[in-house]
């Protein structure tokens, strides 16, 4: 017991202990909320199991089929964009910037890819590449603006990015409607060769919407890790994030790095938008409001400690909550419990100083 306590108190372990504890506490609070509202919290876990593994615990012992791979496919569909927005927020955080604008960057990324897909003629394979790159570029531009304003005018990126989220929403909505053939709620569907959809992947997951986007996600994760850990650029970004004064002293171009970093972060979020638009749906959608991918990205980044692998795990975690929402709704649990749990997890991560103190106390430090 004492060894465990000591292990808890050791600061080096706190890096992954804090997120784990935050997740645990978040779920506990969520369960309490459910209990107070008269709902059985076990329903939450049944929904989660079903949404992630496709296993319907309620059906065990009934003779009906327990496993439905469609849920597994859909689960990954939910995870993909938020891993990307998580990487987006994480990348900016490493440079000391708070990218709340992943939401807007994602939206312009979606739009750019749809725009290219509908308007630009050419061989499918080429256009598809253009769509992906274009979406990333659009996100990069949307991220560059707050980065540049911060660097040049020291305007706080939090308010600017939030304003740009709303701007992105309204402008993309308008321009979607201007595309040829669009209705008031969506554009025409993309040609067959211009989506990331896959008959093959669908077929092995009982007709889920699983698509090739996950390859983009994996490549994105690897690139993130490589840039941050292996390159001099990543070294500079980290230095700027920890101590911009020392970075300047060392001859680094702090402002340029800030703008560049926001561009890359924007590109990641833009790619998230791309895979939603051309992977999950295959057409552009006019949105009544932002869908929350950006905020999920914040949760993912924070829980993942702003690392590549952490963003993957964070994405898998919060993706499970998102995927469980429709199941929960149909079994009588208000779907917003997922948001409550997510926000509580972020809250507990924010409380890390307090949690660390408690852990150290348990560990026996004076």
């Amino acid at each position, binding site marked *: 017991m004492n060894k465990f306590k000591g292990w808890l108190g050791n600061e080096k372990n706190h890096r992954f202990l804090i997120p784990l504890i935050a997740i645990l506490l978040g779920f506990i609070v969520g369960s309490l909320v459910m209990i107070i509202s008269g709902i059985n919290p076990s329903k939450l876990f049944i929904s989660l199991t079903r949404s992630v593994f496709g296993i319907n615990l309620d059906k065990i012992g009934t003779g009906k089929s327990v496993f439905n791979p469609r849920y597994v496919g859909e689960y990954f569909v939910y995870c993909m964009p938020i891993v990307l927005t998580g990487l987006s927020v994480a990348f900016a955080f490493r440079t000391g910037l708070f990218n709340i604008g992943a939401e807007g960057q994602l939206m312009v990324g979606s739009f750019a890819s749809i725009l290219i897909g509908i308007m630009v003629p050419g061989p499918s394979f080429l256009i598809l590449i253009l769509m992906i790159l274009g979406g990333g570029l659009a996100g990069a531009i949307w991220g560059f603006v707050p980065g540049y304003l911060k660097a040049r005018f020291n305007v706080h990126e939090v308010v600017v990015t939030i304003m740009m989220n709303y701007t992105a929403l309204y402008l993309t909505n308008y321009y979607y409607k201007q595309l040829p053939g669009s209705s008031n709620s969506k554009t025409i569907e993309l040609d067959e060769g211009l989506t990331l959809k896959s008959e093959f992947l669908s077929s092995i997951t009982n007709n889920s919407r699983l698509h090739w986007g996950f390859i983009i996600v994996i490549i994105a994760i690897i690139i993130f890790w490589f840039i941050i850990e292996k390159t001099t650029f990543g070294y500079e970004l980290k230095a700027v994030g920890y101590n911009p004064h020392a970075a300047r*002293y060392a*001859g680094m171009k702090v402002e340029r790095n800030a703008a560049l970093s926001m561009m890359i972060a924007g590109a990641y979020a833009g790619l998230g938008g791309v895979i939603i638009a051309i992977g999950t749906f295959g057409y552009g959608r006019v949105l009544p409001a932002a869908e929350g991918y950006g905020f999920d990205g914040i949760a993912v980044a924070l829980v993942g400690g702003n690392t590549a692998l952490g963003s993957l795990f964070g994405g898998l975690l919060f993706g499970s909550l998102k995927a469980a929402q429709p199941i929960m709704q149909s079994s009588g649990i208000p779907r917003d419990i997922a948001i409550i749990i997510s926000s509580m997890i972020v809250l507990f991560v924010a409380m890390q100083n307090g949690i660390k103190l408690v852990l150290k106390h348990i560990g026996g430090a004076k």
Partner: protein
Amino acid sequence: MDYVIEMLNITKEFPGIKANDDVTLKVEKGEIHALLGENGAGKSTLMSVLFGLYQQEKGVIKVRGEEVNINNPNIANKYGIGMVHQHFKLVHNFTVTENIVLGMEPTRSFGRIDIARAAKKVKEISERYGLSVDPYAKIEDITVGMQQRVEILKMLYRDAEILIFDEPTAVLTPQEIEELMSIMKELVSEGKSIVLITHKLREIKMVADHCTVLRRGKYIGTVDVADTTEEQMAEMMVGREVSFEVEKGPSNPTDVILSIKDLKVKNSRGLYAVNGLNLDIKAGEVLCVAGIDGNGQSELIQAITGLTKVDSGKILFEGKDIEKESVRHRTLMGMGHIPEDRHKHGLVLEFSLEDNMALQSYFREPLSHNGILQPDAVRAYSDGLIEMFDIRSGQGSVTQVRSMSGGNQQKAIIAREVERSPKLLIAAQPTRGLDVGAIEYIHERLIAERDAGKAVLLMSLEMEEVLNVSDKIAVIYEGEIVGVVNADETNENELGLMMAGSKKGKVTTNE
């Protein structure tokens, strides 16, 4: 014995450190009692305990013979104890009066603050003790000397009988120091008692009656100032015989490495901190820019290294114009910089030791190759420096720099800058906050660089360092060099006068 304050066997601990270890201090009524010790000896902590900012773990405090429990500054105030802080605790955009009455505001109808009444009382007190201030002036607009008077008035407004002065002369000109000494004597003649926290022996000799010495948190002893020499007090402070000399041979200056012509640099408030400055620095020589803090020396260094933009004038490095060049460019041209604030500029505390060692060369072979870091090369480089410069850390190259001691952090910075063998080594307050052993080491290295034919530009606020380490001393006053003298041909008094601007000394030509 009529003791107005007795602090008996005080122990105050912080996580990992005993700031005060069984310390006893007894202050007589109507005396000026000096509290002497090096940086980190525990003087400020002890007084913070007295003033109620901290609570002691062990020990007893008595005020006028009565045992008391001081939990916060309000209670200290009630017992008549007041503190004049080293780093002024003044709200910069409030007026003098607002700062003085904060927490004790007189009110009139509807709960409004009665500023007129407060200002009147401030004026009365200031006149009584000879501390002239303008009650309606804003703090950010008045001089440092006047700001200090506001700090003193804060305490007198609250009828303090016992005044604690925490390193009050660090930011004053010699004239202002004289004024302060006479203010203190005036206060004492009006019946106040004063505790003077300082590490300046000369000032203790000037005004103090008794002196209590602390070293590394421990109580060393109390002496009668009149009967004790400065050397004896220094020995108590440091623990061994202190010679104030530094071993060095004569210098062999050669070519001019850096030439500054009519330089003007604005500070953050838009005023010219460097105001038409001219200076030449030669290889093989230690040139020290000396002056009272706030006369432009920091801005000068920042302009030379490229951290601040130049408004007008020229900086020539080996004959080439560098005013518009980037920091990186100047580093590559052969400049090394040991910054004033090692935590702010010199190190990334969250990085490991090796990552900090690489701070100035990560972008070059062999530490990186085509933009990809080479971790093995970085490790080897760092290990080598640790060995060469005897840098102590918890786990060698992978230690997080934040956990290292101040002295070793500074050693790391010096190792990094010196190893590159820069033609011009700039050292800004390189020994600030360090213990005597580290100070000796750093002085030796600076002399070694000079002997290897490099130019060393030293910037220091410590008179002893200035006189003992430098070959030439350039005094800076209000952004200009008002005199350049040979270190062995001058003394503290002459330098003090130049630093206060009153004697524009002879400028020896660099022949």
